[in-house]
């Protein structure tokens, strides 16, 4: 379990992380989302003891990272694919990391096998593709078979096969009861992988809820209805607290769910031709949620060739 309490980090005049509090539970994949520059990496670096918090605390299994006796047995982390010396072979990179925590060298062979790098174990990491670098980083995280895993943008640079591999791996690790905390800016990927989401913007917590709840709470979520008897249905729905908008010969109903709309229609004997729950993609829900917090806002129109 990872606990972050009132965590803040100031770099000069910039408050990169601002009073952040959340808990990451074991047994599920928790996605860590936020626009670029929202403080995700800084938060992860503080949890791992690389950056010192200006205020607040971050603990893993109840202890600050620096007080963990053999950290690789408790927390595996992938911060970026470049946290290795390119002149060292995959095997020696893993070996020196393993030795520092007293992990037997046979485990190096096991994790190389696990991430599919056994064939290039003696090749220097400098020649690795971004995807191979990610796999080596994940192998490093898995060395100590830790109950807590943290990955910063693990699918960056991976091909579709690699992305599927990561997704399957993350879900399998969570299913074994581990705490899995994954940052990403790829919403479509997070929608498929994460059970729970922590969303931040400008260093502050925006949402801490299940993936399904985040999508459902979006204002772009509505019940779509087609009926020949619009007026009767609209009148009936208004008595149950629904908000109805007519749109292109159909109704957009918010404030109630599909079941409630169906029951109202049945009671009033209104014929329905279509009754569909329309939900935005996680991406759209996320954009709506973080619209006001993006660090580097886009201008509405970009003039090209002026």
């Amino acid at each position, binding site marked *: 379990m990872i606990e972050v309490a009132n965590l803040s980090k100031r770099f000069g005049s910039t408050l990169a992380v601002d009073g952040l509090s959340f808990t990451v539970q074991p047994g599920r994949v928790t996605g860590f989302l936020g626009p670029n520059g929202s403080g995700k990496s800084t938060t992860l670096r503080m949890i791992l003891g690389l950056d*010192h918090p200006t205020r607040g605390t971050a603990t893993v299994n109840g202890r600050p990272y620096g007080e963990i006796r053999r950290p690789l047995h408790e927390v595996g982390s992938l911060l970026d694919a470049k946290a290795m010396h390119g002149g060292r072979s995959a095997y020696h990179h893993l070996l020196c990391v393993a030795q520092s925590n007293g992990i037997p060298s046979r485990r190096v062979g096991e994790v190389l096998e696990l991430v599919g790098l056994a064939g290039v174990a003696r090749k220097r990491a400098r020649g690795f593709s971004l995807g191979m670098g990610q796999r080596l980083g994940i192998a490093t995280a898995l060395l100590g078979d830790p109950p807590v895993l943290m990955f910063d943008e693990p699918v960056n640079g991976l091909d579709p096969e690699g992305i599927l591999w990561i997704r399957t791996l993350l879900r399998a690790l969570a299913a074994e009861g581990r705490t899995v905390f994954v940052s990403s800016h790829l919403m479509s990927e997070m929608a498929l992988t994460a059970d729970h989401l922590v969303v931040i913007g400008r260093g502050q917590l925006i949402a801490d809820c299940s993936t399904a709840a985040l999508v459902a709470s979006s204002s772009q979520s509505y019940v779509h209805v087609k009926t020949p008897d619009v007026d009767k249905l609209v009148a009936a729905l208004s008595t149950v607290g629904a908000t109805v908008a007519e749109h292109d010969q159909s109704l957009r109903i918010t404030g109630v769910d599909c079941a409630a709309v169906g029951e109202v229609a049945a009671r009033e004997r209104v014929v329905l031709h279509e009754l569909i729950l329309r939900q935005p993609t996680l991406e759209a829900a996320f954009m709506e949620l973080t619209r006001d917090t993006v660090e580097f806002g886009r201008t509405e129109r970009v003039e090209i060739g002026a």
Partner: protein
Amino acid sequence: MAMTAPATIGVPNVLCSEWTKLRSLRSTYWTALAAVLAAIGIAVLGCASFVQHFAPSDLIGFDAAAFSVQGLYAAQVLVGALGVLTISGEYATGMIRTTLTSVPQRRSMLALKGAVYAIAALVLGEIGSFGAFGIGQAILHQKGAGVSLTDHNVLRVVIGGGLYIAVVGLLAFGLGALVRRTAGALATFFAVLFLPSALIDLLPSSWHDTVMKFAPANAGTQIMSLHRQHDMLSAWNGLGVLALYAVVITGFALYFVGRRDA
């Protein structure tokens, strides 16, 4: 699920890990080879030239021991560069983040990394020093100009040459850990070694003696002189002064590594 974790990270774990890091980079071998070849090669060239142009008057005030290990002045640059890279290379590549998440006890990690490197530098220095001395004396003996390890103070010069390399190396390592960037640390290292002698004429003349005496390279290299130089520190005091510089710089590095963000 999780393996049963032994109590804590031990000193042998970190030493073992740091030794693997050092020996698994090709640059280590190239630098080590170049340093030893520089020490021995310069001994061969220098002594051969001395023998070739030999005149009996050359023997007046001739320090055969120091003459044969003069290649260590070149070797110190290479071994020092290795010391800088041992730590700055971790910052440059991003490896430092993996190192510090594996061993969050930063000061112990840096101290043990420095120890592994310093022992390697000492071994390289002694190989270079004894190698250069052996070959150099073999050549000088052709004209009867050589000395033997059993002669007065000779062993101190030869062992001291290797010690000098190790202490200069530790100074370089400390600068690398403090500056963290390879180029900046190398520039600082060269400045510490060579600038005092280069800039001596710009300083007030009343400072000359003190600067010449206590400049790191000048102090440290007295160990490689058979006879005490005029206006210079004694052999062991000189090496001690150099070691003081190295310890202070490394001490600052140890202090700051725990405080700064990585």
